[in-house]
C-alpha cells in the first residue's frame, strides 16, 4: 500500500501544529471567525446544522486495518460512536467539539491520515475505482496514476488560482465504477492495438447545478504524454474559464460554450508547447509509485469450503450472489460489505463495526479495505475458502445485508439532517424506501437498481446518474422531491430525465414504489434490468403511472408549483 514519505509526514505534523495554535487563538479571541473559517475549512472542519463536522480524506478510498481501527477510535473517543462514509470516499464525524479537533488530527496523523482538503480553486484529490488492484476486468490499477497526478498537481505554480475547483477520477477497467464521466477530467485506462497502456481522456463532466456528461477529447494518450496532456487541458481552461460567474466557471461550461472540437484543437496546440518540458522523470516516478501499490502475494488453495457453503446455506448463497465480485486472481473474490442494512442510515458504521471490518481485513483480506463512492466498504482480496467464516462474523455484527446493487443499496447524502446547505432531507427517504422494499420482499426479484438521493442541487448524492434519482428541494417552505429516471453512472453515462412535478415527503416513497411496479409489469422478463426497460419503453408508462389523473385541479396546482 502507498505510504506517505517523510516529507508528507512532516508536512502533516506541521499543519496540525499550526491548526492547534489557530484553534487556541480562535478560542481566546485573537482570531475572528472570518479569519478562522478558511483555516478550519482547509483542515476539513465544517460547521453544520447541529454541530461541527470533521471530514477525513481517504485517498482513493484505500485503507488498512490500522487506519480503520483509528477511525473507530476517533468515533468513540471524540464523537458519538459512529462515522459516516461519503460518496467522495471520505469519512465524516458529525459531532466533534472545537477543542478536540486538534487531538483528532494528531490521532489521524499517527496512522498517516489527515483531514487536509486540497480546498479552494485547485486540483482536488484524485479518486479511483474502489475495486482498484483487484477487479477481474481491470487493465491496470488506476491508483498509481491517480497518485502521480496528485503529486504533479499539488503546489503546481500555474494551478493554484484556477477559475474553480477541479476534480479528476481514474478507472482502470472498462466497467467504469469511478463515475469518470461526471468529473472535470475522467481517465479510463485502455490498451491500444499495439497492446500499450494509455488513457482515454474525458473532459467537461460534472453534476451539480448544470449537470453534464464528460466528452472524449482524446481516445488514447500514452503514459509518457499524460501529464503534459492534462497540463494542456488545465491551462486552456485556465485561459478560457469564466471567472466572472461562479456558476459558469467549471470546465464543463467552457466545453459546452466552445464545443469539444474547438477545445481539442486548443489543447493539441498547447500540448505541442508543453510536451518538451516533460523529460520522462514523471514516468520514472510512476514506476516507483506502482511498486508501492504492488498486489499482495495471493495464495493458491482449493475453494471447496466455499462451494459447500453455497450449496448448504441459502442465506450465504444470497449474500454471495449480491455482495461478491469477480477477482483477477483465481480462487479470490472481492467482498462488498453493505452499510445499507434496511432502515439504517446509508454509509454509517459504528466504531464496533469498523473494528470488525478491520479485523476481517487483517485476518482474511491481506490487510486491505476500500471505501466505495456508493458508501459501502470493500474487502478487495479475500480467498473464497475464507468466505463462509467471514460471512458468519459479518452476520453476527449486522454487516451481512445481501443487497449490493439492489433497490435498498441507496446512495444518500447527509441532507437536511446534518448539512447546512441542504434544502430537504435525504436520509429518512432512503431509510423508508429500503424498509418498504424489505417488507415487500421483492428486491431480489427487482434486481439491479440504483437509487441515488441528494438533499440539494449540489448533487453530492449523484442523483442525476441514479437509475432513479431523487432531489430534495424546498418548495415554499415544504420538502419536495423531484424524480429523474434513466441516469447511469457507468461507461455508458447518462443523465436522468425528470418525470414531472415533484412529490411531498409523504408521497415520495409510494411514488418510488409505483415506478418499480411499473417496471416489473413492463419488463420483458427478469433478465431485463430497470435501466434496460426504461431505455426500451421510455418515460411514457412511468409518467402515466405517476400522474394518473391528468388535468385534475390538484395536478395543475402541482405543475404550477414545479
Amino acid at each position: 500500500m502507498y505510504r506517505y514519505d517523510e516529507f508528507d509526514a512532516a508536512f502533516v505534523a506541521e499543519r496540525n501544529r499550526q491548526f492547534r495554535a489557530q484553534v487556541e487563538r480562535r478560542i481566546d479571541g485573537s482570531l475572528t471567525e472570518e479569519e478562522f473559517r478558511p483555516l478550519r475549512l482547509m483542515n476539513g472542519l465544517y460547521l453544520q446544522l447541529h454541530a461541527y463536522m470533521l471530514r477525513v480524506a481517504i485517498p482513493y478510498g484505500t485503507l488498512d486495518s490500522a487506519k480503520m481501527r483509528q477511525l473507530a477510535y476517533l468515533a468513540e473517543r471524540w464523537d458519538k460512536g459512529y462515522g459516516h462514509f461519503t460518496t467522495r470516499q471520505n469519512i465524516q464525524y458529525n459531532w466533534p467539539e472545537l477543542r478536540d479537533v486538534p487531538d483528532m488530527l494528531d490521532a489521524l496523523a499517527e496512522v498517516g491520515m489527515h483531514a487536509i482538503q486540497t480546498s479552494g480553486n485547485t486540483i482536488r484529490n484524485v479518486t479511483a475505482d474502489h475495486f482498484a488492484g483487484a477487479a477481474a476486468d481491470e487493465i491496470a490499477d488506476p491508483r498509481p496514476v491517480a497518485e502521480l497526478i496528485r503529486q504533479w498537481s499539488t503546489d503546481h505554480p500555474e494551478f493554484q488560482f484556477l477559475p474553480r475547483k477541479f476534480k479528476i477520477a481514474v478507472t482502470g477497467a472498462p466497467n467504469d465504477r469511478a463515475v469518470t464521466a461526471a468529473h472535470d477530467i475522467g481517465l479510463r485506462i485502455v490498451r491500444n492495438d499495439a497492446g500499450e497502456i494509455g488513457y482515454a481522456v474525458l473532459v467537461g463532466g460534472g453534476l451539480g447545478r448544470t449537470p453534464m456528461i464528460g466528452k472524449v477529447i482524446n481516445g488514447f494518450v500514452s503514459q509518457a504524454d499524460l501529464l503534459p496532456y492534462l497540463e494542456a487541458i488545465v491551462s486552456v481552461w485556465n485561459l478560457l474559464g469564466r471567472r466572472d460567474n461562479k456558476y459558469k466557471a467549471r470546465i464543463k461550461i467552457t466545453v459546452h460554450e466552445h464545443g469539444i472540437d474547438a477545445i481539442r484543437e486548443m489543447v493539441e496546440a498547447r500540448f505541442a508547447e508543453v510536451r518538451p518540458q516533460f523529460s520522462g522523470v514523471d514516468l520514472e516516478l510512476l514506476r516507483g509509485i506502482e511498486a508501492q501499490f504492488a498486489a499482495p502475494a495471493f495464495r493458491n488453495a482449493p475453494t471447496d469450503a466455499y462451494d459447500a457453503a453455497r450449496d448448504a446455506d441459502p442465506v450465504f448463497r444470497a449474500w454471495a450472489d449480491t455482495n461478491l465480485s469477480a477477482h483477477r486472481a483465481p480462487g479470490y473474490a472481492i467482498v462488498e460489505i453493505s452499510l445499507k442494512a434496511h432502515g439504517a442510515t446509508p454509509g454509517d458504521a459504528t466504531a464496533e463495526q469498523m473494528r470488525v471490518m478491520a479485523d476481517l481485513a487483517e485476518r482474511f483480506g491481506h490487510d486491505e479495505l476500500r471505501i466505495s463512492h456508493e458508501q459501502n466498504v470493500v474487502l478487495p482480496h479475500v480467498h473464497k475458502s475464507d468466505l463462509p467464516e467471514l460471512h458468519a462474523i459479518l452476520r453476527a455484527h449486522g454487516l451481512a445485508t445481501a443487497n449490493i446493487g439492489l433497490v435498498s443499496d441507496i446512495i444518500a447524502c447527509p441532507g437536511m439532517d446534518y448539512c447546512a446547505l441542504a434544502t430537504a432531507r435525504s436520509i429518512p427517504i432512503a431509510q423508508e424506501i429500503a424498509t418498504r422494499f424489505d417488507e415487500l420482499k421483492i428486491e431480489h426479484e427487482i434486481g439491479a437498481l440504483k437509487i441515488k438521493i441528494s438533499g440539494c442541487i449540489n448533487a453530492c448524492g449523484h442523483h442525476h446518474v441514479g437509475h432513479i434519482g431523487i432531489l430534495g428541494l424546498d418548495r415554499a417552505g415544504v420538502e419536495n422531491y423531484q424524480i429523474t429516471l434513466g441516469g447511469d453512472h457507468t461507461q455508458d453515462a447518462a443523465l436522468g430525465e425528470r418525470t414531472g412535478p415533484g412529490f411531498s415527503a409523504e408521497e415520495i416513497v409510494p411514488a418510488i414504489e409505483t415506478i418499480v411496479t411499473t417496471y416489473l409489469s413492463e419488463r420483458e422478463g427478469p433478465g431485463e434490468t430497470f435501466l434496460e426497460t426504461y431505455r426500451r419503453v421510455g418515460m411514457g408508462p412511468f409518467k402515466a403511472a405517476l400522474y394518473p389523473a391528468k388535468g385534475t385541479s390538484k395536478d395543475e396546482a402541482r405543475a404550477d408549483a414545479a
Partner: protein
Amino acid sequence: MPRPFTPKVVTANALLEGDVVYLAEDGSWTRRLSEAELLTDEADAQIRLIEAEKRTSEVVGVYLADMAPGDAGPEPVHFREAFRRTGPSNRFHGKQADA
C-alpha cells in the same frame, strides 16, 4: 401596505460545542428554543442581531430566524429551524437527546 413583520429569534451555533443556541431575553444564550426571546418588532430585531454578532467569542454564524408565537414559546415557521431545534431525524442525537 408594508408587509407584516414575521417575528424572529436570534440564533447561532455555540463556538466550542457547535450546538444550536438562541438568544434569551436576559441576553444569555439558551439551548432551548422555548426559552428564546421572540422579537416582534423589526427595529428591535436588528438591534438584537447586531449586538449578538459582536459576541464572536461565544457563538458562530448569528442570524435571525422566522418564528411564530406559540403556547410554549417561539415555534419554527420553516422546517429547517424545526430540525435545528430537535436534532437529526435518523438518530436520537442533538437536542432531542439532551431534553
